[in-house]
């Protein structure tokens, strides 16, 4: 539906629907309002509390695609270099292995015990495929060679 | 048995009867001692009706009408007000007591006021005790 965040009427459906808001002081509606008036605090951890469950977005009566908007805010934060270390690590894993969660010796064994190939037929198996992924990331200006 | 006053209320059709109906629609509770007689205008309240009521044993009589200025018939209630003064005087002479007569203005929207007036008046009559004529009649 993608209506402007400024059309928010402060009904509170979003905050009320949010699974995170129930356990931490993250308030979806506040984020929307801050966005509407252009006062995002990129240092505020709240940005990262959203699970992208889409509840708020599917329920917003004013048709604001809230979850998508939150992702945009995160992207801006990232561009400003404000990102959580574990997330940076995930990028690093992808760069290194093509996988956000690369395989380890234990699982290799488990795979074999189950009768599966030791390595999955993914970038783990195909070196040139991994290079392709890296190339795409490098083109975007992301390098995590270490 | 405790004394339960008998109260007669003369209501004009437009305002006070409307108020009494309104007390009903709003479910405002008041003591069940009052019985209403409806006239078109408070100006119709013939002094004879009031006296008749007392002579037959009523413990209290209420006269009610539209607020001054709001009379459906222009100024019937001014006349009622004058008559009220006269009647009070007369009731004192008769030994019934002016306190047993009450005049109230209620608009059709004042259900609450109607109920409150009836409640207060009932309490007052309860405190005054039975109509002395009735006592004497015994």
């Amino acid at each position, binding site marked *: 539906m993608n209506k402007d965040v400024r059309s928010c009427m402060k009904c509170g459906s979003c905050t009320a629907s949010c*699974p*995170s808001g*129930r*356990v*931490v002081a993250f308030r979806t509606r506040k984020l929307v309002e801050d966005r509407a008036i252009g006062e995002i605090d990129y240092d505020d*951890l709240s940005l*990262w*509390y*959203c*699970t*992208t*469950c*889409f*509840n708020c977005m*599917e329920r917003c009566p004013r048709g604001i695609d809230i*979850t998508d908007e939150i*992702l*945009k805010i*995160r*992207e801006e934060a*990232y561009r400003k270099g404000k990102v*959580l270390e*574990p*997330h940076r*690590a*995930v*990028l690093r894993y*992808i760069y290194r292995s*093509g*996988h*956000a*969660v*690369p*395989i*380890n010796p234990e*699982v290799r064994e*488990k*795979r074999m*015990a*189950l*009768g*599966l190939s030791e390595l*999955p*037929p*993914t*970038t*783990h*198996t*195909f070196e*040139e*495929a*991994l290079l*392709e*992924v890296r*190339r*795409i*990331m490098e*083109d*975007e200006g*992301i390098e995590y060679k270490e | 048995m405790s004394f339960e006053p008998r109260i007669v209320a003369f209501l004009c059709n437009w305002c006070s009867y409307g108020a009494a109906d309104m007390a009903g629609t709003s479910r405002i509770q008041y003591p069940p001692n009052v019985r209403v007689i409806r006239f078109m205008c408070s100006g119709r309240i013939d002094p004879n009706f009031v006296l008749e009521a007392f002579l037959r044993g009523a413990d209290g009589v209420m006269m009610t009408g539209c607020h001054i200025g709001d009379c459906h018939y222009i100024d019937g209630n001014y006349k009622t007000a004058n008559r009220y003064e006269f009647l009070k005087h007369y009731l004192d002479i008769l030994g019934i007591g002016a306190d047993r007569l009450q005049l109230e203005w209620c608009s059709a929207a004042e259900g609450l006021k109607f109920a409150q007036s009836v409640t207060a008046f009932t309490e007052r009559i309860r405190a005054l005790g039975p109509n002395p004529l009735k006592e004497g009649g015994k």
Partner: protein
Amino acid sequence: MRGLSTKSDFSLFLGCLIPNRLPEIEKSTRLVCERLGINLHDMKGASCCPAPGVMKSFDKALWLKIAGRNLDIAANMGMDIITLCNGCYGTLKDASMELKDDPELQEVVRASLSTIDRDLGKIVDVYHFVEYLYFDYGLDDLSDHITKKLDYKVAAHYGCHLLKPIKYRRTKDFDAPTFFDELIELTGSTSVDYVEKNTCCGAGGGLRSGLKDVALDIARKKVASIKDANMIVTPCPFCHMQLAQVSNIPVVYYSQLLALSMGFSEEEVGMAVGK
């Protein structure tokens, strides 16, 4: 219900968690598909989908490009994709839909892929395994293969991205969907209701990777409302891991449950290994 689809060849998108952490899901899925006549073909050289919670959050363009590369692998195989993970589904389904809807985006992705001698090809359709079973394979056909009636009491967990965003999903009722319960009940098990049934597991959006404690608190709240069940069944390895971490009862992937009802043993579907 008879299935809609006559297709039986698919490219299998494994993602990361399944092959690299929960291979029993891969194993059981391969087993049941073979039995069902669904031919799964490996997507050679596929990568991370990429992880929507992280990559989509930071850099949507990059997310689309890497997803586009995965889509292209399937396009070259000439087969639509089946995924086994809500996250992969969320990425590949949404990316494919967005690309189909938006020629300009396509151009951006094509340009990027051209540097690695790839294109986007004809953008393939993306299915989640359980969605395919229900809407396309069909409960009736599926039930022909059920040989053993299980009588587990199951707490079903759908997971958010199987259901939302609804504009790219086949069920519009994300608050009270029933298709996964029906699939579970086909095995003879009972899907028991619980208060927070439809609540998020808390893992998504990078929350589990970024702020694990918070993520687990959400999961705890959810799992605490389960009563009277002897297992949780999920259609997603990510929810799976998240719930398993806070649950006292076993968490089982749907293929495993289905495989048991087809007569496979616990060992074969990796439940023993998983324990």
